[in-house]
């Protein structure tokens, strides 16, 4: 890896430092400045480009906290997604067989705040991080009830997510009306995926910029699917999407084998722990996350703040005490093994 890029690993840089570091390299990439309303024009392969900062999930286009922005710069740089001559139209293939607009749409999903889903044989839990644009505003709604037996969590362009949720509700209710029976979730995701595919093959449309975690029941039990702007869908035991979802995915990867037989309570606890992973050091409070559950004999519903806080308390008790007293005791939440007993504390990151 280019030594110049090491600077971005810590997410500690302020804007000036970032720009200075960039000027030091000659590779072509684009960057949007934080806080100063700066747009940087760079030259490189693919020609001179000028890029607006990409639309965030909080649609007013305001800037997010600087460390989150830096993290996505880091991701973008690491991936080296350069502007090129094949990415103007969704109906233009690149010589290497890629549709860049579709891939850019998938990038939009990564801009949104994290959404997590996990399932057992009989239950599905969807959880997400509530990020509000500012202290004055309320947080965006990211989890929607589609029917008593289907729920969806979104990440990306909320407006697209809202429209697709409405479509899903419409499909579910039409099926219910005609057949007096719940729409199998596996069939709903195929309809959704086909709808997304259409937008990748029409020159007058653009792909939906939202990833959907669809959880639901059908005859064969509980299912969790991820629907992608590309029109692909995959079934998962557990998955996370949105910004800093990699941390949640790592957590889930370690534990997913036990999920199929998990109890409902354990599944909820795992979901909240996965949410905590994406917060990366911020104290987990019930106001920061939304959790929903559905299962056999249990229609889709949201958990109230009190219930979530009770679950958080079962594993954050030790950490909370430590924060309050400022002692250097080990945090050791019950689930995390292997960290050793005396050498880690849960102090927030230094930014």
């Amino acid at each position: 890896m280019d030594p110049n890029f090491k600077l971005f690993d810590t997410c500690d840089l302020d804007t000036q430092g970032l720009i200075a570091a960039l000027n030091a390299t000659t590779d072509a990439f684009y960057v949007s400045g934080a806080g100063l309303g700066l747009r940087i024009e760079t030259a490189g392969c693919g020609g001179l480009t000028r890029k607006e900062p990409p639309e965030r999930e909080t649609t007013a286009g305001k800037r997010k906290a600087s460390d989150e922005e830096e993290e996505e710069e880091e991701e973008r740089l690491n991936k080296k997604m350069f502007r090129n001559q094949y990415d103007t139209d969704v109906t233009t293939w690149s010589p290497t067989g890629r549709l860049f607009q579709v891939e850019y749409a998938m990038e939009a999903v990564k801009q949104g705040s994290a959404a997590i889903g996990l399932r057992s044989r009989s239950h599905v839990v969807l959880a997400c991080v509530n990020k509000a644009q500012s202290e004055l505003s309320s947080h965006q709604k990211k989890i929607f009830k589609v029917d008593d037996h289907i729920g969806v969590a979104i990440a990306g362009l909320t407006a697209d997510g809202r429209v697709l949720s409405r479509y899903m509700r419409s499909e579910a209710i039409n099926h219910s009306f005609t057949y007096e029976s719940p729409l199998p979730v596996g069939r709903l995701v195929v309809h959704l995926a086909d709808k997304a595919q259409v937008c990748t093959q029409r020159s007058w449309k653009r792909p939906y910029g939202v990833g959907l975690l669809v959880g639901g029941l059908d005859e064969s039990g509980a299912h969790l699917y991820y629907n992608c702007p590309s029109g692909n869908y995959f079934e998962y035991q557990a998955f996370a999407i949105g910004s800093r979802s990699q941390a949640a995915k790592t957590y889930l990867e370690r534990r997913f084998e036990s999920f199929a037989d998990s109890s409902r309570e354990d599944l909820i606890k795992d979901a909240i722990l996965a949410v905590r992973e994406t917060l990366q050091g911020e104290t987990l409070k019930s106001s920061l996350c939304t959790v929903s559950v559905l299962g056999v004999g249990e229609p889709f519903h949201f958990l109230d703040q009190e219930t979530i806080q009770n679950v958080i308390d079962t594993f954050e008790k030790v950490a909370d005490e430590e924060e309050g007293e400022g002692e250097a005791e080990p945090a050791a939440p019950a689930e995390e093994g292997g960290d050793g007993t005396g050498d880690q504390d849960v102090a927030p990151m230094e930014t």
Partner: protein
Amino acid sequence: MTFTIPIDNGDALKNAEADSQRTLYPYVTGTSIVAIKYKDGVLMASDMGGSYGSTLRYKNIERVKAIGKHSLLGASGEISDFQEILRYLDELVLNDNMWDDGNSLGPKEVHNYLTRVMYNRRNKFNPLWNTLVLGGVKNGESYLGMVSMIGVSFEDNHVATGFGNHLARPILRDEWRADLSFEDGVKLLEKCMRVLLYRDRSAINKLQIAKITEEGVTVSQPYSLKTFWEFQAFHNPTAGAQGSW
């Protein structure tokens, strides 16, 4: 033989030419269907006649058919409309199978689909002139329901159509039990069919009984019921009819 291409003249109610396109009365009709839930599933009986008005014209019409894996459909009324319904259901079952995803249409779903179809046709003043009986078993649960040509739909433990409503259901109300064995169920249905044979002018003495259980559908071969015509009243039928009354 010339075939006319179907012409869509628009609204079946307001357009004068369209009047010829909607169903006004039935032509070839089937008579009653009688069906009951029993211990292992559902039993359905019907005769094999198709009447052309008052003529008992067709004597080999199967009025009970299997739908998918889990359902049986019986119909009385216009036979051609029944065949049309079978085509709709065929398409429905085909699409369901094409999903190939472990989900399948059960009798409740088929019954509701048919209710929607029948009611929508009635709203366009172009009904499918049938009374349908839908029975089936899925996941151990038996289901038996009925839909009429105007979209009236309900479920019950025993149903009958046409004359069966008047002649068979009273018998069933008295003698039906939830734990009927297969033999007892057949005997009960035969009792109802015998009454219908004696008293329904459009009934013929050639019937089929179909059974549906968790394992699947079986339709019996056609057979006849024994009848007795040596009642005293039949010897001199007009004995009591003196005078012009």
